[in-house]
């Protein structure tokens, strides 16, 4: 059998026969430029004393922004709030998501498919809509639930505008992410260790402490850091629930710094970003180390092994089913019903017999004819598909170099591909805004004011997820298949088309679903980069509906969007399963 050198294999695969070491290096440079260039602008922005992005000048460099930001007491309140908010959210989502994952992976609880689909479906609802639904339910003055509880039981109203509510809501929103990451970890822990311990007379708590916990700990820490990094950057819940009570966290403080054009200070926003960027970079590097350690624990995994499930008694089953039912009720059913009701009213009204007479279908009737809607949908589809394609292509290239080559700098490549996860959308938006304004001075075609800065921004943002997924997929694919094809004279394209693509297509579909859905739901980046109808995405249209108080329209639009994304996800999940089955057969 012909021996194929790994580095050469990668380059040969991409047709770089005469430049064996060039491709991985070029990839490193490209990913580096993609990730570092916006950050470079951010650093210089933080040192610039110009208030406007377009006025940056080397003569106006100094530490004024840092002095202004870090001498303000409000900055330290923001840091404290962000800390409390992040820790609380991580604790809640981690305990809830891990518990759900454990129940579905390790017990004989019934209706597993139903709950699995329900939990993943809850990710289809944009944060803006979920937060809006919860304001409509639990605002101390107009909340539907508050009104009902007051009328029925005389309870004092619950105030949703609080840090506790921010943590609770964001924590609930993050549970599916934790669940999706913890489920495979818990599922692949072999039961033989636990059985051996039981045979030796260990108690269940001892088994948990001494076997399960050490095994899942690296994964758990990795997930914690991933959620922590995500939470620091999110905007929707802090924006809608925190701001009315004057509770600022990092993302909303940055937004406040640039949202009022009279006092907009991009330099201060960049300076404020730097401390969080540093925290996030430390978090990302810790995550990276922990994730590396996870693989060490995989030596105990048995191929084709089905973990033995814990048999629950009927009381335990009822209790667990009840809790999971409450979770789905709170995260999916209540917000969806609230949005449906609100879509039928001109002004939000608590449900009552009197309110029934005021219901109308005006919002639903106006959906299809809403101005700029179709252009926004077209823009969003172009951005979603382009981003998904770019993320898949780039992730695959990165993963191929990581898994199949001995490229010396592959740790750096991996780190660079993951590091954008530490860059919140608002920060990336500011730096891309600046970058695209400058890019037009050197590029022969218009760049600013088009959808392409958003495609680049989203590609940067979603590259970490893409590379995690494609690397995991490629690791499972033994290189013998490719080597055999090469030995038989197959070209690189033939190998990709006939071997790699069919086997990795389930992974590609997952990356596509994830990226496509997130582009539809993501608000911050499009809000920073849109300039007119040519670059307006659906998320911006929804944001301005919210801003103008069109509750009924945003509810109707939101429900349609959720339905579309849910159906699309289900169809693509089915496709993914078929492809996976076909891949196994292959």
């Amino acid at each position, binding site marked *: 059998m012909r021996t194929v050198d790994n580095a050469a294999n990668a380059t040969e695969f991409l047709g770089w026969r005469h430049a064996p070491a060039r491709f991985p290096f070029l990839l490193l440079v490209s990913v580096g430029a993609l990730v570092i260039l916006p950050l470079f602008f951010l650093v210089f922005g933080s040192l610039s004393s110009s208030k406007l992005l377009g006025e940056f000048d080397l003569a106006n460099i100094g530490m004024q922004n840092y002095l202004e930001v870090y001498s303000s007491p409000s900055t330290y309140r923001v840091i404290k709030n962000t800390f409390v908010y992040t820790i609380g959210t991580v604790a809640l989502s981690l305990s809830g998501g891990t518990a759900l994952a454990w129940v579905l992976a390790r017990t004989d609880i019934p209706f597993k498919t139903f709950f699995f689909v329900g939990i993943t479906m809850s990710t289809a609802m944009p944060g803006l809509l979920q937060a809006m639904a919860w304001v409509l339910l639990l605002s101390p003055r107009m909340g539907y639930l508050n009104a009902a509880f007051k009328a029925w039981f005389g309870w004092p109203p619950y105030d949703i505008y609080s840090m506790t509510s921010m943590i609770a809501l964001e924590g609930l929103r993050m549970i599916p992410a934790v669940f999706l990451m913890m489920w495979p970890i818990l599922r692949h822990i072999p039961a033989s260790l636990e059985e051996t311990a039981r045979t030796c007379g260990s108690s269940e708590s001892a088994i948990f402490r001494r076997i399960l916990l050490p095994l899942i700990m690296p994964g758990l820490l990795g997930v914690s850091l991933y959620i922590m990094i995500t939470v620091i950057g999110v905007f929707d819940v802090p924006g809608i629930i925190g701001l009315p009570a004057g509770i600022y966290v990092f993302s909303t403080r940055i937004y406040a710094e640039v949202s009022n054009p009279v006092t907009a200070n991009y330099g201060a926003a960049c300076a404020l970003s730097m401390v969080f960027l540093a925290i996030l970079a430390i978090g990302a590097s810790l995550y990276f180390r922990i994730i590396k350690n996870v693989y060490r624990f995989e030596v105990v995994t048995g191929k084709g092994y089905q973990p033995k499930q814990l048999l629950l008694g009927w009381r335990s089953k009822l209790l667990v089913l009840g809790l999971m039912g409450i979770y789905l009720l709170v995260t999916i059913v209540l917000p969806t019903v609230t949005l449906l009701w609100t879509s039928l009213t001109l002004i*939000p009204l608590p449900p009552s017999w009197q309110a029934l007479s005021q219901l109308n279908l005006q919002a639903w009737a106006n959906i299809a004819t809403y101005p700029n809607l179709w252009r926004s949908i077209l823009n969003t589809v172009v951005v979603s598909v382009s981003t998904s394609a770019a993320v898949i292509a780039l992730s695959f290239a990165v993963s191929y170099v990581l898994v199949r080559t001995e490229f010396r700098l592959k740790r750096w490549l991996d780190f660079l591909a993951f590091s954008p996860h530490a860059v919140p959308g608002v920060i990336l938006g500011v730096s891309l805004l600046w970058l695209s304004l400058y890019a037009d001075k050197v590029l022969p075609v218009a760049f600013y004011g088009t959808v392409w800065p958003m495609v680049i921004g989203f590609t940067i943002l979603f590259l970490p997820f893409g590379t995690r997924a494609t690397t995991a997929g490629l690791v499972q694919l033994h290189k013998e298949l490719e080597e055999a094809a090469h030995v038989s004279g197959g070209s690189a394209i033939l190998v990709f088309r006939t071997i790699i693509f069919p086997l990795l297509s389930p992974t590609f579909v997952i990356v596509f679903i994830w990226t496509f859905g997130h582009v539809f739901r993501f608000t911050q980046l499009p809000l920073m980069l849109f*300039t007119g109808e040519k670059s307006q995405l659906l998320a911006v249209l929804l944001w301005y509906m919210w801003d103008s108080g069109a509750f009924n329209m945003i509810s109707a639009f939101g429900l349609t969007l959720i339905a579309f994304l849910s159906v699309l996800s289900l169809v693509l999940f089915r496709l993914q399963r078929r492809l996976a089955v076909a891949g196994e057969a292959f």
Partner: protein
Amino acid sequence: MGYLTKGLLIVVAAALFSWRVLSGVEAAAATARVAFDDGSIVVPPNIVEGAMREGEVRIRGTMEPPEWAEYVKPFQQRVPFVRASFTRADGAARWGRVVMEHRAGKVIADVVTGLSGGIPQMVQYGMLEDLRDLPTFPVYDQKDPQGRWIATFITSWGIGYRTDRASKKELRSWEDLVNAKWGKRLAIGDKPNLTPHVMWALWGPEKTKNWLTRLFAVKPQLRKEGAGMLVKLLAAGEYDIIFPVHDREVRSAARAGAPVAWTFPEGPYFAADPSDTGIIKGSPNLNAAKLFLTYMTSKEGQLLEHKITGTVPAHRELTNDARFLPWPEEQLGRKVVTPLVLERMQALKETTEFWKKLMLGG
């Protein structure tokens, strides 16, 4: 490629060419005359010809997209050779971004409405076109004498309240608003560029700072939503009083049956805020922009905007007409005090900086 396919392609190309030529003939016929207000406002032919060459105008403004769709219909019927595209945007994206783009040598929007907060910077950078050749320019009082902006409608910003939970008697003076009893029943919209900066210009910094500090000490709800949302939340009962809020949105909610009203405390009335509109210098669609702005400032454009959005026209012949005032009982017969535009603009930055500190909690 077969002869049949080639022939078919030639026929399609010929049809497309003829259509373009005929469209051009039709458009050329329109250059003869574009007029508004039953022919009394005639757009100069050089503007019309220039607009034909340009073919589009891009507007950034504050209307809701459905309102815009209705508003632009007569313009597009009269001027089919110019495509008017509209982007609804808040202050940051509407004029804040325009300033930034202009500084980077880009003009992405031709006409921008609701400029007032951006005027100081725009004047500083010389980025506004001269509008004095607009046929409607002479019939406007609210405008820049040097022609850099013109008011397209007037908005009054005052206090909105729920008639079932608060009364006008409780809101007679500005001191009534800084009463600790309101607490979270009161909401403050994050809009220092409206009534607060006019207070600053009229009252002076010390009195305004003192009043604003006491207002925030009430611990009201701090709302960052847009003007429309602030009124919807008032109508839904999220708070009992909102400041500052504009007259027409509250009127619109009241007409829809919500128990809400609008008031302006006793004393001099300084709530009227002209919504200034300008054309960005360097616009590649300068003539089309002027053509569109002529429509906006014509009587028919003003009346249509009032009909659709409830705005008070700024046109001299319409602006003092009680029929167009959302709350005539509050607005008619009041002694009006209006600071000069430049005084307001000077006050704007200081007010906004001070306000920002209060919003962020010090």
